[in-house]
Structures are given as C-alpha cells and as structure tokens.
C-alpha cells in the first residue's frame, strides 16, 4: 500500500521493512521501493537478492528492474542461475528493463559454457539489442544443444530479424529435435508476416 501511494514519506518505512523478519514484509517492501523508483535503496535490494526465501528474491529482482540502474546488472546476471525459476525469469525481465548497459555482460554469458544460461542469455539479448544480434543467433541455430537452438529460434523471433525466416523454415524441417522444429516453425511464421 505504501508503495502504491507513491509518497516519498513512505520510503523510510519501506526501507525499514526490507529487514523485517517476515519474508512477505521484506518482499512487499522491495516491491514498494521499486514502484517509487527509489534508487538509494539499490544496496539493500541487491542484498535482498540473496535472501533465503525465493519470493523475496523474485520481488527484489522485480524492484531492481524498475530502478533501471546498470549497477544491478552483475547481480541480476548472477540471478539468471538462481535455484528458483521465478527468480531466473524475473531477473531476465529486469535485465531487459535496464536495457543496453546489460548487453556486454549478457554477451559474456552467451559466450560461456553453461547451455541453460546461454539459452536464457540469447533470449534476453534479443529483447535488449535487437539489431546487432544476427551473427550470434545464426551461431545459436547451429549449436549442438537443442535447448540453445530452440532459444536462438525464439531470439530471432523476438529480435524481428526477417532475414532469418528462411533458415528457420529450413530448420523447422531438418532439425533432429521435435521441440526445435516446432519453435523454428512458429518463429518463421511470425517473421514471414513482418512487413
């Protein structure tokens, strides 16, 4: 409620709430601070991103996305490998909200070894830096891991790279993994409709 009032007077109460013993109080205080875009709360929110409760971590990541502060990039990149899927999904969203400053870090993850992280990174990158991504996506479409290939198909769709419609169509018929074929076909269909 305090967050929704958008009143600066509530900031003190919300900041104190971040240290509350009840996890829901901590989490909702983070959401409130995010809603108020209170940038001074960044250190506390980064700390909350390591909270033992996954709901707190999720809401902290949400708040960091709203702050749009590139200082949170590294922590959010780390959260892409969180033990709970909600934190991972929201962290990716937060990185998209922060935007261009996250590209370098995301590309570093994309060039790494962990295929699950790579697949998440390419999908996130596609939403952040649409135009510069063709090479990476093309590389992804030929990856050995089906998960990465499927994510590269989605990335092509998110980035709206029309030139990739043809290779995607080809992939939708030739790939050995049924899920990649399905995702490639969906992406090719979307891209071919783009003007």
């Amino acid at each position, binding site marked *: 409620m305090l967050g929704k009032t958008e009143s600066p007077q509530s900031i003190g109460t919300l900041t104190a709430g971040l240290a509350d013993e009840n*996890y*829901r109080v901590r989490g909702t205080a983070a959401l409130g601070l995010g809603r108020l875009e209170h940038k001074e709360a960044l250190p506390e929110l980064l700390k909350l991103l390591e909270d033992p*409760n*996954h*709901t707190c971590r*999720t*809401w902290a990541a*949400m708040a960091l996305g709203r702050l749009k502060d590139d200082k949170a990039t590294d922590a959010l990149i780390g959260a892409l490998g969180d*033990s*709970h*899927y*909600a934190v*991972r*999904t*929201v962290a990716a*969203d937060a990185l998209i909200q922060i935007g261009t400053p996250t590209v370098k870090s995301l590309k570093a993850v994309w060039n790494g070894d962990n295929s*699950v992280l790579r*697949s*998440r990174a390419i999908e996130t990158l596609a939403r952040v830096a649409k135009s510069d991504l063709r090479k990476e996506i093309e590389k992804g479409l030929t990856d050995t891991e*089906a*998960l990465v290939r*499927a994510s590269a198909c989605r990335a092509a769709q998110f980035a709206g790279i029309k030139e990739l419609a043809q290779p995607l169509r080809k992939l939708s018929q030739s790939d050995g*993994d*049924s*899920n990649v074929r*399905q*995702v490639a076909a969906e992406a090719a269909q979307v891209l071919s409709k783009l003007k």
Partner: protein
Amino acid sequence: MPLILSFLLCSTGPVIAEPDLLDRALRAIKMTRADVTLDKNYRRRDAFALKGVDEMLTAPLKLPDYAQQMGEELGNATTLRELIELGASRLEVALDTIPSLPKDERKHSWRESRWRKKVNRALPQAVAVEVIKLVDAAIYCNVVIDTAYVQLSKQERAVLFEQKDVEHRKEYPLHEYFVRHHRGVENVEKANHALFKASAKVKLGKLLLAAAVWSEHVENAKENLKNWAAEQKGIDDGILLELRTPAGLVMVTGDDSSIIRGPRPQLLIDLGGDDTYFTAIGGGKGCTAVIELAGDDTYIPDADRALGAGIHGASIFIDCEGDDRYNTRDVALGVGLFGVGIAIDEAGRDDYNAQEIASGVGVMGIGIQIDLEGHDSYFVRRMGQAASVTRGLGLLIDRAGNDSYFAGRRYGGWSTSREFSASAAQGFAGGVREYTSGGIALLLDLQGHDSYYGEAIAQGVGYWFALGMLIDGNGNDNYQALHYSQGSGFHFAVAGLFDNAGNDTYLGGVTCQGSGYDYSAGVMVDYSGNDLYKSSHLSSGSGGVTGMGFLFDNGGNDVYLTGRPRSHSLGGGQFVKRRGFGCIGGFIDTGGKDYYLYEPCKDNSLWTRAQDGVGLDTEKGKAIYAKRMKVTRKVDKPAQQKSQHAVAPLSNVEEAMKKLSNWRTKKDEKEQAVAVLKKNLKEAEPLLIDHLLAEPFYMSFGAAYSVIPQMGAEMAPALVKVFETGDAEDRVRAFPCWGRLSRPSPSEH
C-alpha cells in the same frame, strides 16, 4: 594400487542420478525438479493445518507415491481399529493412552443390574453376552468421549452442542455450518470464529481413542454373533429386546422380516431377515452401533445423522449380507463430525442413495464407508463419496464389483448455477476459506469396471490447504466431470487422480486431468491401458494463475481430444508477472502409439508452450511413476446359507417381474426370477425399462436398479434409447444401470 584408488573414488564420489524423462522435459523449459515446488509459507497459520499437506505443497511430484502408499496401508488394514489408527496418523493426531476412569463410573448400580437381568432373560445366552459387553464398552467409551471436551468453557460447549431449531429440524451448529452455511445466522464471521475457536480446543486424540476401542468391541461382537447365527437351526422372530440401558436404548430383532419405526436405538442387532428401517439407526452423539447379520434390507431413515454417523462420538454400522438399499437424508453412511463414523456393507449389490454429507465424510474426525463385494451404485447430491473438511479424513473403500458413482443434482431445483452444481465429492478435500485449513480425502476403488460421474469439484480435488485423492485399481473405468475435477488442486491445495490399470475414458471440462490453479498442484497418473482424454482449457497437465499441473500416462495407445491452440492444455504454463511467480504445466506420455487432435502435440515428440509448459510423448524411456499399491488382504466370503424352503417354479416374465418388485421376496426366489428374465430378455426388456422410469421414483428401486445391470450388455441399446429420448430425470435413472452393466473382463477387452 591405481585400480583400488579408482574404485574408492567411484564408491565414495557423489552419485549423479541419470536424468529421466521428466528431467528431459523440464530442461526444455530451463527447469529442474527443484523448481516444482509451491511456497508453503504462503499459508495462513491455523490450528488445523496438516504437515502432510504442507509437504505435498512443497513437493507435489511426491504425491503419486504418497497416494499409493496410503492406499496400500488402508487397503491392507485388517481391523476397524487399525483403520482408525492409520487415519489418526494421517490426521497427525496421537491416540491418547486409555485414561483411568473415576471409580464410581465402573460400579454397577442396582439399575444396571436390573437391565442385565432383563437382557439375560430376553435373549439367547450367546447374544446376551455380546449385548452386555457392548453396553459396558459404550458406557466406558462415552466417558472417554466426555474427557475430550474438558477444556471447553460453558459457552464454547454451547457453540458445539446446542441444538437449534432450523426450519423445524433440530441441528447441531457444526452440521448447520457445513450443510447450509449458517443459514439464518446474522453475523456469520462471528459465528465462524466462535465455532472454530471451540473446535480447536477439542481433544481429537481422545475422541479417536474412544472410537478405536468401540470399533474393536463392535467388530468382535459381530464376528461372535455371526458364528453363533451360523450354528443355529432356527432363530426367534419379532423384536426380542427393546430396553433402556445406561448406554441408551438397545434393540435386538429376530430372523423374520421386520419393519422398524419409532425411537432411535443406540445399539441395534438384527439376527436375520429382510428388514426395513424407517428409524435413523446408527447415528448421533456418543457411542452407537448397528449389526445387521443377514437379509436384503432397506434403510430409509426418517432423520439426518444415521447409518454410521458419529457426531461427538463414534458410530459403527455393519451390514453383513444381502442386496441392500439405502435411501438416506443428510449426514449418513460413514460420517465423522467430531469423532468417527463407519459404515460397512460386507456383501451384495447395494444401492446407496444419499442427500448431502454422506458416504465417507470426515470433519474434525474420520468418516469411512466400506463396501466389500458386489456391483454397487453410489448417489450423493453434494459433499460425499470420500470428502473431508477441517482436520478430517474422508474415506470410501470399495473392494470389488463394477460400481457407479454419481455426485450431483438429480431432480433439478438444487444447484449453485443453472448449468451445474458443486459436487464436492469422489475424493474431495477442502478447507474453510479464510478460517481453517482442510483435511485429507481418498476414494479407493480396488476392483471392477467403474463409472464416475460428477459435476464441478469431483474425482480427486483439493481446495484450500487440503489434499484430495482418487485411486482406482483394476478395470476399465469411465470418468466424467465438469470443472475443477480429475486430479485438480485449486486455491492453495494439492490433489491427484490415479488409475492403476485398464482402458479408461476421461471426460472433463475446464481445470481438470492434472491441473493446478492458484498456488495449487494437481497430479494425474494413468499407469497403463489404452485411454481416451477429452477436456477443455487448463487441463491435461497444465498450471494456471501460479499453479502447477502434471499428467503422466504410462503405456497404451491413447487418444487426446484436447490441447486446442492457445488453450492451456497438454503441458500448458504461464508466468504471472504481477505475482512474480509462474505456473508449470507438464505432460508426459510413455509408450504406445498415441493420437493428438491439435498441433504441436504429436506422437514421439517434445513440445513447449508459450512459457513454462512442456509436453513429451515418447516410446523410449522408463515411466516416471511405476510403483502401484499392493492390496493383499483377502475378503472373507460369507458362508452361503442353504435355502430352507422350496422355491416354486416361475412360468413367465410377468410373474418374475412381480417377484422382483416385491421387497419381501427371498434371495433364491429373486435369483430364479432373474434367470427367467435373462432367458426371455426380448420380452423382459420393455418391462424393465418401464420399471426403471416408473413414478414415483422410488418404485424403480424394486427391480430395475438391481436387475438391469445383471442382464449385461444386451440391455445397452435400450438404455441408450432412454438417454436419447428421455428427459433429464430419465437419463439420471438410466445412468447407474449403464455404469454397472456386466462387462467383459479387462483381459477380454
């Protein structure tokens, strides 16, 4: 040396489990098994919460094994006491030790001596001994029951015990709450708080202990009386004893066909004959029991709370033999409301026809209905056939026969909407939203080809911190229900539907067949057979609004008439940004050649939905869930009694119908009449259908309900005609017969 070292390294290093099909499917949506969990911390703490439910919320994928283990334990229980103890452990209630009773409670006053003498004078010695033992046990257990309420203040006792005159019916407040939601009460919130505050103070351990002791005595008495009756050449007719004792009214009736009306006995023993009961026997406060040794009996209680309804006490109802008809009002056939209620029918084709809160319902206690043999039909309007609310265990065990289960409105006029009603049945567990967590419910059908029909909320459903389950053993089964059904959890609950064998048909609506809605999880597993699934949105292994749903089908060539594009079905998930939490949908079909109606679902393929939903169909790989319950307990078949009178031969179909319509006709005569009808089925068919649709409705209970199923599949076309041409009431009457038609065994199928 290097060999030893490498051996040591291998043996002490971490064991990495080989990823299975579920791991493979979850990886496609960038998840692991660790992600399949719900935050139990969301719960609103209350005094009635069960750790077992919390555990399942934390790890919903454990539910199939949990359910099979529970089914195995309960299915293998050999005594009622064992069943109650197992139930108590699931309700996390420790049975108290036997309290030492005040000395004067054990003394026999002159009044007691007098009733003993009267019992001894009126009854054969063996029967008198059992009656006296039961009365003594009831006196003792009643004192134990009283100790469960010692912590309650006078006002709190009034909340639980005071009877109110509601529409000229005396009701207990708790009964009133669950049946009619405090109708006529001005401040419902205040009334609820008072009710649950008082309920939390009741010592459930004492109530369950008293019930365990009482059930042991009743079961022993039944066995002894059965053995005694088998040795007798002739037993007297009429009412042998009707006597007020310190444990209440005791009645013993003889071998003839009696009609019992009048005051409710606390203890009733019938030694034989086809009896009709218009009194609400086997129900009420304290310890009550009914032991019906033989005969095709009809039970039409004239009031609520009957036939194994333990309210603030323990009630045991046992019918040992015969094809029986039960036509009850509310709260009947194994209902525990602050205590334990057990109803057992040991043999015969039985019809259970109940209104609301019936057939294995537990609220602050344990409600169990058991049917050991025969093709049976179960009807309930709402809340029954294994249902539970606050700290309750609702259990229905049907051990054999092709059964039909019907839960919903039958004659119109009552419903939550024009389209359908809330059945809250067939393995439904629910809490009282914003007040208390729910309990555990399990419908366990071990054998036979069964039909399940429910409207909304039926067939393994959980609601508000509760756990609802349905397990069906062998047989080709039909499941039909509307919304929130067939292994569906909604609003902070867990639920499951598990079919262990056979070729099954599942017809559902929205939110069904392994679906979770709003911080809930639903799991459905079909362990084998060629199955057909039809459903609508949010179904077949799908999660919605931060819920999780899983459908696993092992083996068989299956048909999926579901999964329309953009619907949440066959592995549908979503991420709810507003809540910062997602839904997971998982569908895995192993083995067989399967048919899917909509793309992208295909045989031998993996597909992902928009977000967090995955489906996998494969012929290779091990099924995720293979462990099924093993129920080994053998049913002791009652000894076949020899016919004591010659049966006159029947000449034609009309005569046979007349015999079957008469409730006084003996079993062997009925068997002969059925044989005549079978022989002349063409002639008999229209007569049977006329009988089925007879007015008033209870006329059809005479022959049609029990005879048509015995005629077999040849009656199917006539029943189909009723479905096609009859009105709603006709269809409702035809349904239970359809479900129980003698069918070929699964191996022949």
